[in-house]
């Protein structure tokens, strides 16, 4: 069992999907039950990963290896370290809750809907556990088609535009990334005389800085579009706004993390010289900072509740990439924790929009006001989600943002200064949103007599609130899990930096010093 644990986690949703296909489409409730059971089973089988995970161990755990396409050197090679462990758990939890939250809101083409969700779970888990680059790429692309359908079939008025935009953007990034992957693959063959996509093997490559930079940019396009970093973010507001609630939740909570995860798992360890290259770090950090500020400022302007949350993602993901390219322990582990936090809090914010949208069928902020009088419980949940997203101490958001800022401050004080501005703007647009929708008097007649949260909605929110508070109060276990893998990555970037003859840039040296301290 233990040695096939990851495969079980990966294929449980697929097994659920295969059975689902045999349930007749008219049996809507049976389909709902089955999909929820499959998702819950998917979550349950992922729990042993957490319990059996040895946080003191270096390298990957639960590794499974099987020669899949020997003539190309492609293996079915899966395994996790602390970073992927957290990502897998985030995926199974959010997947389960997203599927559960769709019980009432999805009433057309139910079977196809759940089938797409389960397929997407497989793709996302696969992305986070693959240790073979081509396998990773295949899962990466596998996610596209289900999301296209989730947005395109069950989405809002401009769903067709949003769906194809999401699809094409990510596809073009993916294919350009494939060229980078193939370059590494070919170089490995040049140097070692055999073909492999195994990432620990590819890490043995000695590549000149120039080539590393090219490959870095090719990965960058793939990952930056997915994150999305400014200026590749334009697909995100459309996709998020038009997707059905559960689709937005998964998109924000898990799908975007595939990009940041890609940077951490592939760009940094495989291309350490390029990742610490002064120009590249500057460009990436500037783009992150622009993303943080731009996302926050645009959020301030939004009239549409959901679009506001969507743009806030651009801002929050900017923090994550800033943390990664601070290239130190604090920045990187803060970034991973912030990714989890963003999954929880933005996931909640999208669910909150979904709750009110189901009742009123509008997302215009000015349609609301004073909802706290009508739906007190809803207002409390919203307050927690909002404060967690804004980074209030004792809630999860604070832990991530603070650690990232600490890392950025160590790397470069100017960066930290700009990022802090982002935190302030973040609090501003969230509080203002809360004020406009929840506080004051009920001005709109239609809002009177709206029902408060029902038990299903509570069941979705409670675990997320609990998780948010748990991280906020006691984040140590997360840092413990992340310590080893993050250390290894930082060390690798640092060593490559020292080994290279090229004079190290100021930022990178400081980042390197951070490790030795």
């Amino acid at each position: 069992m233990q040695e096939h644990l990851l495969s079980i986690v990966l294929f449980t949703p697929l097994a659920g999907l295969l059975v689902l296909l045999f349930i007749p489409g008219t049996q809507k409730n049976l389909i709902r039950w089955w999909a929820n059971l499959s998702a819950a089973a998917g979550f349950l089988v992922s729990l042993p990963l957490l319990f059996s995970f040895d946080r003191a161990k270096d390298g990957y755990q639960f590794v499974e290896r099987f020669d899949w396409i020997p003539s190309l050197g492609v293996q079915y090679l899966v395994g996790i370290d602390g970073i992927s462990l957290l990502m897998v758990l985030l995926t199974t939890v959010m997947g389960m809750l997203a599927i559960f939250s769709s019980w009432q809101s999805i009433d057309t083409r139910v079977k196809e809907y759940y089938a797409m969700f389960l397929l997407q779970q497989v793709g996302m888990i696969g992305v986070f556990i693959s240790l073979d680059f081509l396998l990773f790429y295949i899962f990466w692309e596998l996610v596209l088609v289900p999301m296209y359908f989730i947005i395109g079939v069950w989405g809002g008025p401009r769903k067709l535009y949003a769906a194809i935009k999401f699809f094409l953007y990510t596809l073009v990034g993916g294919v350009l990334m494939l060229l980078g992957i193939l370059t590494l693959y070919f170089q490995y063959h040049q140097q070692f005389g055999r073909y492999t996509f195994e990432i620990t093997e590819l890490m043995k490559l000695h590549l000149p800085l120039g080539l590393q930079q090219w490959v870095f940019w090719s990965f960058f396009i793939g990952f930056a579009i997915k994150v999305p970093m400014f200026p590749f973010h334009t697909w995100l507001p459309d996709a998020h706004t038009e997707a059905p609630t559960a689709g937005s939740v998964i998109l924000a909570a898990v799908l975007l993390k595939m990009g940041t995860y890609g940077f951490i798992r592939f760009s940094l360890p495989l291309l350490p010289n390029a990742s610490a290259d002064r120009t590249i770090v500057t460009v990436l950090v500037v783009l992150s900072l622009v993303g943080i500020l731009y996302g926050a400022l645009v959020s301030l302007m939004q009239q549409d509740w959901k679009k506001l949350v969507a743009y806030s993602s651009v801002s929050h993901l900017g923090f994550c990439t800033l943390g990664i390219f601070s290239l130190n322990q604090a920045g990187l582990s803060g970034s991973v924790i912030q990714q989890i936090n963003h999954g929880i809090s933005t996931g909640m914010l999208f669910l909150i929009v979904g709750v009110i949208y189901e009742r009123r069928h509008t997302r215009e902020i000015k349609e609301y006001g004073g909802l706290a009088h009508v739906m007190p419980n809803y207002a409390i949940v919203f307050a927690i989600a909002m404060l967690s997203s804004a980074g209030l101490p004792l809630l999860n958001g604070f832990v991530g943002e603070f650690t990232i800022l600490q890392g950025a401050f160590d790397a470069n004080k100017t960066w930290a200064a700009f990022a802090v501005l982002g935190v302030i703007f973040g609090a501003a647009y969230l509080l203002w949103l809360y004020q406009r929708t929840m506080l004051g008097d009920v001005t709109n007649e239609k809002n009177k007599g709206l029902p408060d949260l029902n038990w299903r909605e509570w069941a979705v929110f409670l675990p997320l609130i609990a998780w948010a508070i748990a991280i906020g109060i006691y984040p140590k276990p997360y840092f413990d899990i992340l310590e080893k893998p993050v250390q290894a990555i930082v060390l690798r970037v640092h060593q490559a930096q020292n080994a290279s003859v090229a004079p190290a840039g100021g930022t990178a040296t400081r980042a390197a010093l951070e490790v030795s301290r």
Partner: protein
Amino acid sequence: MSAFYTATDHFVLLPAILLALFGCATLLFDFWVFPDPKQRRWLLLFLVIGEAFTAVAFWRQQAFLGSHGGDLSAFHGALVIDKYALFFHWIFLITTVIVGLISYRYFEVREEHHGEYYGLLMLAQCGMYFLASGTELVSIFVGLETMAISFYILVGFLRADQRSNEAALKYLLLGAFSSGFLAYGFSLLYGLAGSTRLRDIMAAVSGRDPWDPILFLALVTTTVGLLFKISAAPFHMWAPDAYEGAPTVVTAYLAVGSKAASFALLIRLFAGALGPVREAWLPLIIGASVLSMTIGNLAAVTQTNTKRLLAYSSINHAGYILLGLVAGNSTGLQGMLVYIMVYAFMNLGAFLVITALNRKGIAGEDINDLRGLMQKAPGHAIWMLIFLVSLAGIPPTAGFFGKYYIFRALVETGHYTLAAIAAIYVAVAAYYYFRLVKAMFIEKEDTETPPLEVSLGTRLALGITGAATLAIGIFPEPFLRLAQMSVSR
């Protein structure tokens, strides 16, 4: 067996003889045995039996090569059976059988079910045999014409349909024109080498300056002729019209069979005999490849007729396959073979679903005819989705591995710019393939139309092509190994 016709000659030629015999016999049987149009379905059985015999002949050749190794040359080096040729022969055979399986219902609905159709399919395949196995210019040219003439008739097979006639005429004129080019190039090559055998030509050209004017003229005319046949830009103009006007089943055969056969010849010629003067023809191939991807993709975006859209997409695919030749290393050649195999299955599959939409009074050729297919025939819609995703080159379907090899070969040979262009066009192509997906899954039917009537043959063919598209995507190893063996010399 005399010195003119040895046992080896017979062994090598047997599949072609069988195809010609069964093809001609079908023409006769049509008159003698099945005067009633309703009974003509039995002729399909005739085709299947003929193909079964041919398959046995190929199988024996395969077994012989397996136990003896090397290749088997016949008629003083005019024909050859090697793994490369057999790879294509199997593709032609499967393609012909699948096209036969989906045809009877199509022609019955159109009330144009004539027996000679099956005969012509086999005669066309007989021509293809010489394209893949020919190692001598005259045999190749005769094979090419046998195939082409069968296709001229097949394209105009809907006698009462004006578009079909128009398509046949256009195809005939431009096809004859391109054959002229090719014949001109062949004659120049003969003049240079003093022999029509490819190995003599290879020896003759390898000693020459690649930029020798006569040689260059020969290369240009040969290339132009072949680019016509594979419908690569800028010689693609016939394809959209011919594809649109031809009966859909013939379009499928044209898009897969004819293209694969022409590629079989193109690869043997350019990677083999003309390999030594690569630097002279390479710019032509690069230009044709980039133009094909550009024109194919950009023109496909605005099409409203599914067959026309797939015609432009096939021009685009020709561009991708040519990139393997541009790379020119063993990965590139292997990639071309994998791509052609994959293309055969996924493209046949896509045409097959379009064919299934053809009902009484509904042509089923407009994109809007696909609307609401998910509600109407979920099985067909899901298979079509798999074919389209594969055509777009997205894993885990077969199409991805075609693209994978091409990209890898380009990266290995340092053609980074070409690789980036090809990568970006993947997204453009995905856009128009997903227009079809959108119609099938998201949009709703405008007016109520009768349900699909799906014949047993179509179901069978759909199963074969769909299973192959998925199998190559998920367990590609045996298929890739097959392609690898077929190019290793």
